[in-house]
């Protein structure tokens, strides 16, 4: 397969690139509604039980969550730089940026896992060891949403990390993917980042003021 010819259903390479990019945006629209449904359900309960949800939310580790927010935002900056490096055709910075992105993504997963472990020790995991006496039924509902939302987010992030590592390996080995693959992975990465930007205040911040 020569680098210059598009797949058979396309007339030109630029048409193929536009199609791939549009496909990614359509996929992200699906994802927005997927997470949106979860956030809507959670918000319904937050409105119905404001005091109970706030009390439960105080048991999350806001410091770790904040650090993770910074980690993920930084990773997105590296991802954006990687896209710029591809456009400028600079291979070394491109590979380094991708590696930095993946390492930060892995750090996020590591910190999140540490949080999960702390929560497990406190008896905060629904259906496993949830301590009703201390946190109550609505507390369990909150932590169900907490694990559901952050878990789904972590799954998405893990898929992103794998894609970024594969890209880095291929580019490092001198077999770069066709445009706009890197750009599409970048869009996906930023999307996963944005989901977290919504999850962080919704989950960690209720009940932190007053």
């Amino acid at each position, binding site marked *: 397969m020569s680098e210059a010819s598009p797949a058979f259903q396309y007339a030109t390479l630029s048409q193929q690139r536009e199609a791939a990019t*549009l496909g990614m945006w*359509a996929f992200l629209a699906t994802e927005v509604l997927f997470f949106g*449904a979860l956030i809507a359900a959670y918000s319904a309960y937050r409105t119905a039980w404001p005091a109970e949800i706030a009390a439960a939310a105080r048991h999350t580790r806001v410091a770790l969550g904040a650090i993770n927010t910074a980690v993920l935002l930084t990773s997105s900056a590296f991802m954006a730089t990687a896209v710029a490096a591809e456009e400028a055709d600079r291979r070394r910075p491109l590979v380094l940026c991708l590696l930095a992105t993946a390492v930060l993504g892995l750090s996020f997963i590591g910190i999140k896992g540490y949080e999960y472990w702390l929560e497990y020790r406190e008896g905060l995991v629904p259906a496993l060891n949830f301590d009703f006496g201390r946190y109550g039924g609505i507390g*369990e509902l909150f932590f169900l949403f907490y694990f*559901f939302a952050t878990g789904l987010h972590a799954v998405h992030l893990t898929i992103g990390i794998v894609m970024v590592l594969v890209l880095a390996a291929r580019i490092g080995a001198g077999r770069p993917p066709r445009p706009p693959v890197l750009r599409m992975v970048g869009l996906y990465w930023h999307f996963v980042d944005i989901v977290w930007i919504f999850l962080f205040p919704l989950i960690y911040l209720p009940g932190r003021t007053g």
Partner: protein
Amino acid sequence: MHGSPPNYLTARTTIRSWLFSTDHKRIALLYFASITFFFLIGGLAAVLIRLELVTPAADLVLPDTYNRLFTMHGVIMVWFFLVPSIPTTLGNFVLPLMLAARDLAFPRLNLASWYFYIAGGALTVLALLLGGVDTGWTFYEPYASAFSNGYVTLAVLGIFLSGFSSILTGLNFIVTTHKLRAPGMTWYRLPLFVWSLYSTSVILVLATPVLAMTLLMLVAERVLGIGIFDPALGGDPLLWQHMFWFYSHPAVYIMVLPAIGIVSELVPAFARKQIFGYKFVAWASVAIAAIGFLVWGHHMFVAGQSLYASLVFSFLSYLVAVPSAIKVFNWVATLHKGWIRFDAPMLYAFGFIGLFTIGGLTGLFLAALAIDVHVTDTYFVVAHFHYIMVGGSVSAFFGGLHYWWPKITGRLYPEGWARAAAILMFFGFNLTFFPQFVLGWLGMPRRYDAYPPEFQIWHVLSSAGASTLAVAYAMPLFYFFWSLVWGARAPANPWGATGLEWLTGSPPPARNFERTPIVVRGPYDYVEGQPRPQAENV
């Protein structure tokens, strides 16, 4: 096939070349075979339901079995027949042809979506074989998580998987319509079927993920025993209804918009006349898709939602009737002074227009707050949505199937038999479902296997209609297969239609067109009943 150049059917013939084909035309046929299978299973359940209801007593099957039958009928027919039916078969086949594209934008994704569909179907069928589900297709909470002893989790995961098929198909159609149109194919030269598939795809991409998340939460509640929807555990059962209908009302348009698109093809093709008000018909599809997202609460008028919410949902539901009526009026205006041919596809289109209108008008009854209280959960509702989804969508599906059958197979079907089947289907349908309007109005609730004796005459009429309908549905199965062997060879354009799909061979070559057409005019250009094709350089 001696002497003729290879087409998409003859190019390669191994089983492998079918199961791993990325050709949109072959994938369409894979879907045809699969949805026919699911239609037969769903139909079998309907037969048993109608048999049980012939007598007032619950005497044919156990009450618990009856619950499983109507659940199986609903689940299979909605998610494994109606939702995929027109888009994945006829849409898959003709969308690239109508745009003069060589394939969809993402052919491998198209194949993957068929496998998702099959995997989902397999899980759901497994759930049915193991003993079934008794919740009804709506999986209302908290029954579905806390009380049902059926294989809810398995069936729900099957529906979840088939959702990927919906999403990927929608995504593929959207990108194809944006990026793979032939030179000269502007948006206002697109056939109306493309407009309706596009609107459908937007719903598939935006509504299906909400169902996916909702089903995941149901599985979480059922498996982990934590109250998301179960009030005994602190959950809110109304939340389930909101989230379920946020998908399932737009899903009605997933089922009927493609049908509307087919009828918009059939009416000008057989009236041999420019469609009346092209832009109105085109934008009406978009309007139906958009407003359709805002009306889900009309399923919850008696569920305890706020009266003010109900008022708004009622008003918005009336609003959907406007673009729907625009379509009906424009079809009728197109017929006015047309050179009408009464071939089988047109008979199905007529059937669609009549039944869709009755279904739509009775939908207005249900959108009215006071009347809805009287007929909620009665056979009136059952009759209403069968008029839309069976009388409407299935009629249009058969209309489109007859219309494009020569293109798909290269053979002509026997016209006389086809007309007979179309007419029988229309009468069988009305005989089945019109009595159900009466039953519902008289107060017969849905989902009951026993009823007071005074309702029996209406149930017997309905069951007699169902038998007629079964014969009418079986007929095409026979004469279509017959035509594959003995049917006359089809010319490229047997109907004298104007769309690009009629400019290539019947059946088309593997890459659709020998030479890419340059589109020079709109889709339904007839001068005094004579077609002027959309492109002339082929």
